[in-house]
């Protein structure tokens, strides 16, 4: 009798737990797809940004490694070839006519050819690239500090973000773009890189110019940069969340 009761109770508990976990899992999926719940989850992005900015020094440098630490293979993720005719022409000409334009909310809009950029003082850094997927690779990047370009174009007081327009478009024709806070543009390790491990950037890694935004995850490091636009708000650009991946549900603040 007693034994039976115990067994029944165990079955009941097992059944309850099993059913509850299935319901909970389906519930999580429903919440994920709902119109309101992700925006609640997303509240923590601002919290994370505020706290991280408060407890870390804005000028803290990401660790710089030695040449011996460089990854033998540096994976190329995301788009590895813009694949457009326009871009293919530039590849054929070895990017000799590639220019990067810096405009928007600035005193003096300017543009530089790749050759002109290479004339400017450069910075070389051996840093770790942390992908949102979880992998890390170390590479040696050479490029122009973005802050130097900012000093030349002189951002207007209402400029808050730098938006990077890129040459790649996805299968559905959506153009890739990224953005960062204007303040982060002046970080000494924020560079527009044209070399990886001593060689000109190759196509999979973002030729001819890619952003290095050390201290944030890999998807913020825009490849194939054509134009930098300073804006007051990210609304109205792309999906309005500040970047290609952000529009697909990733955080704009990718500090963690």
């Amino acid at each position, binding site marked *: 009798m007693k034994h039976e009761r115990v067994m029944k109770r165990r079955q009941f508990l097992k059944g309850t737990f099993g059913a509850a976990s299935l319901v909970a899992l389906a519930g999580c999926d429903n919440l*994920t797809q709902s119109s309101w719940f992700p925006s609640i*989850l997303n*509240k923590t992005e601002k919290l994370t940004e505020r706290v991280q900015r408060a407890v870390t020094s804005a000028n803290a440098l990401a*660790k710089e490694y030695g040449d011996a630490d460089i990854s033998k293979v540096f994976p190329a993720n995301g788009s590895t070839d813009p694949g457009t005719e326009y871009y293919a022409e530039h590849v054929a000409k070895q990017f000799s006519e590639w220019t990067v334009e810096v405009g928007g909310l600035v005193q003096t809009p300017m543009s530089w050819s790749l050759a002109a950029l290479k004339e400017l003082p450069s910075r070389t850094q051996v840093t770790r690239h942390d992908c949102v997927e979880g992998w890390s690779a170390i590479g040696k990047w050479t490029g122009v500090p973005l802050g130097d370009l900012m000093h030349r174009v002189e951002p207007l007081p209402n400029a808050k973000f730098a938006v990077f327009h890129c040459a790649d478009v996805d299968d559905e024709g959506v153009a890739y773009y990224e953005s960062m806070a204007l303040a982060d543009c002046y970080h000494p390790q924020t560079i527009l890189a044209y070399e990886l491990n001593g060689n000109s950037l190759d196509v999979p890694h973002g030729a001819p110019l890619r952003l290095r935004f050390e201290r944030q995850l890999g998807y913020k490091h825009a490849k194939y940069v054509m134009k930098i636009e300073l804006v007051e708000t990210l609304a109205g650009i792309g999906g309005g969340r500040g970047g290609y991946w952000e529009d697909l549900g990733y955080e704009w603040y990718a*500090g*963690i």
Partner: protein
Amino acid sequence: MQRTATPKPEETQPVAALTHEGTGAGQGHEHEQVSELGLRSEPPPLEAQAASDGLPANQSAVSTAPSASAPVIERVYRHRLPVRISHWLNVPCLLILIMSGLQIFNAHPALYWGDRSDRDQAWLSIRSTKTESGEIRGITTILGYKFDTTGVLGYSDGSGRAFPAWATVPSYKFLGMGRQWHLFFAWLLVINGLFFTAYALISRHLTRDLAPTGKDLRGIGQAVKDHVVLRHPVGNEAKRYNVLQKLAYVAILFVVAPLVILTGLAMSPTIDAAFPWLLTILGGRQGARTIHFIACFSFVGFIVLHVVQVMLTGFFNNMRSMVTGWFVVRREREGAGHEA
């Protein structure tokens, strides 16, 4: 704090019906002064004082019958409200953190030591591979040893994924939303943890109930033996945490939980720039990721053991005590056999 709980009438009633769950039989302990969980450490008040002060009837042992062999039913206010709230907040937090963590892991299902993730240097990987006959198998590789884990790890329900759909949040592949779930509940866990730690220190719950005493530690051998044969403390001994329980709680609360938070933070490139020593002590960014994963499975192990113990030592009594605070201890004057 929770001093206002006045003994309700039924609390001093013989509640034999509530005690059918296996708190087991007494071992003939004499009534001794024990420090109750969530209660003051001063000597227990006299019965009369307890009533007039409105204190919980923590020592209200009531004989159900004049017979010497009849069980003594005691209701103990075992868990205070802050502990209960904190405990139940941990349940969704940990479940969602574990499952959304597995979703994130699935995006790069391999673990390494050091700062780099050189593909040939993984100590663990869970991937799908095609056999010569064209069949897809899930292969888990640990320190070079390969295991076929098709159906659960590497390949399940017709898709190549490290952890199966039933173990991840969301169940389908979606790294971006997995991260949003994870970071939201990570904040909740941290806030809850800070709240609990502050409470445990201020209320002395930590020093009184959780920290093992010298006597506890000397009895560790016996405690291990008792656990192996599923002999659980009864009577007065059941009112306090036993030494293995204390060690498990202290380890999970003050070793594993801080470690999981620190290794989580150490995966943040922003945090690493400001606090480079974090990665130095945690074995690099990939080392931190590895420790984070191991800590996660320490939680899984803890939860399994915890739930099993809750069931074995009287599921409804334990649940009641973590919901209402009140725990029933039954002591018998004479030894008797074990129940369930």
